[in-house]
């Protein structure tokens, strides 16, 4: 396990990019749970983990003749600042195509310290 940061360094709904053995990894805090993604977008290797973090937008089939109501789901995505590709922070899967996925890392939190299990 490799120590990457302290819990208080990553606020809820926020992220931080750290370097582990020469590899950039984004550390995210969602509702007190920590997640880690490789900081490399599947599209053109952009620094995805430095992008905006927000809840994914959803919508359901509306009644005939109506527009769908958009709403925020409970899933958080991080959005690559280069081209806008959005990834689910918990799974690393692209919000529009789950077959596109950036590598995730197992995270362990002990005594207010965040570790990567690599």
């Amino acid at each position, binding site marked *: 396990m490799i120590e990457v940061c302290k819990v208080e360094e990553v606020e809820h709904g926020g992220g931080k990019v750290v370097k582990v053995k020469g590899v950039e990894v984004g550390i995210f805090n969602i509702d007190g749970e920590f997640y880690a993604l490789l900081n490399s977008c599947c*599209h053109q290797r952009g620094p995805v983990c430095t992008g905006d973090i927000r809840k*994914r*937008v*959803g*919508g*359901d*089939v*509306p009644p*005939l*003749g*109506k*527009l*769908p109501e*958009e709403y925020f789901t409970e899933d958080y995505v991080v959005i690559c600042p280069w*081209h*806008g*590709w*959005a990834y689910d922070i918990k799974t690393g899967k*692209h*919000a*529009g*195509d789950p077959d*596109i996925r950036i590598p995730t890392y197992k995270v362990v939190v002990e005594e207010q310290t965040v570790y990567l299990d690599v």
Partner: protein
Amino acid sequence: MAIGGKTIFDTDAHYVETLYDIVDYIDDDDPWKLKFEYGSTANRSVPISFWPSLSRPDGFNYPSIKRRDVDFNTKEGVVQLMEEMSFDKILLLSEQILTFAMLEEDKRQTKFSEAYIRYMLDKIADADEGMYMSIPVPYNDPIKAAELIDDYASEKAIIGACVLTARIEPPMGHRKYDPIYDACQRADLPVLFHGGSATLDNFGWLSGFTTIMETHALGFLFDNMTTIANVVSQGVPEKFPKLDFVFQETGLFWIPMMMYRMDMEYLRMQDEAVLMRKRPSEYMKEFYYGTQPMEIVPDKKYLQYVIEMIGGPDRLMYASDYPHEDFDDPSAINELAFLTEEEKEGILGKNAEEVFGV
């Protein structure tokens, strides 16, 4: 009939009806009958042709040509064409539906559609003879269009609802058209999206061209690219999951371009299209496509790649576009060496038989 044992189903031939043919099928007590009656003082606003400046007195529009002396506005003409071309089945499209692109929102579309349906059912369409027809969808009035579909979809000879996609505003993904799709889905009637902005005058999308070579190359593309982008992005396939969609008269090479271009946009902006559940290309691989007009390529392998990209030969339906000049003979499919005999059989007939349920 058939060719080499393969059933031939032409899924897009333009029956060349005239307004003279259909006016008798407007009720006598309907004032609109006078508006459709050529020579009537009330006949002020019903166009007789999509190409007003170039139309020919025989009802064929330039650049249409007659082939093999088949007179294509009688039932005998349809029979003759089918025999000469070895067509076992034929899906007839209204020729005058091409005028829809130049009609503002009023009753001309709905009045025409109902009279055309009545005329065709009475005089031409005949399921027992393999002569089928589609409902020309009067999209300007989606409620009335849905009523027409409800009223006539059970007719054995009616196997599709055709939307002429030339210059439709808003495009066909808009929620105002939901009643049309809903009626088609209830009736298990595939929706045909047929391009049509081929004219020099009234091109619709852009003015300033001086040759039909340009507008004919671009118009069908504009029509169906606009339609496919909007229908997919607005989630029409998700709203009406049992509905089959067939895109006609746009050839094939535009499809992979739209698939990958739309995928690129979707992967950046899918939060705008909240009804979409997968990539645009995945929806497009579930649609069907008429093969006509087949692009002319220097090497058939390019065509092979395109067919592979859009989901394989199962997506395709042979279409002749008779009697128009960019007509395709069944040999356009039958002589493609990269297709297996089974694949040719699918494109020439079986795929359409399955989709249209005949």
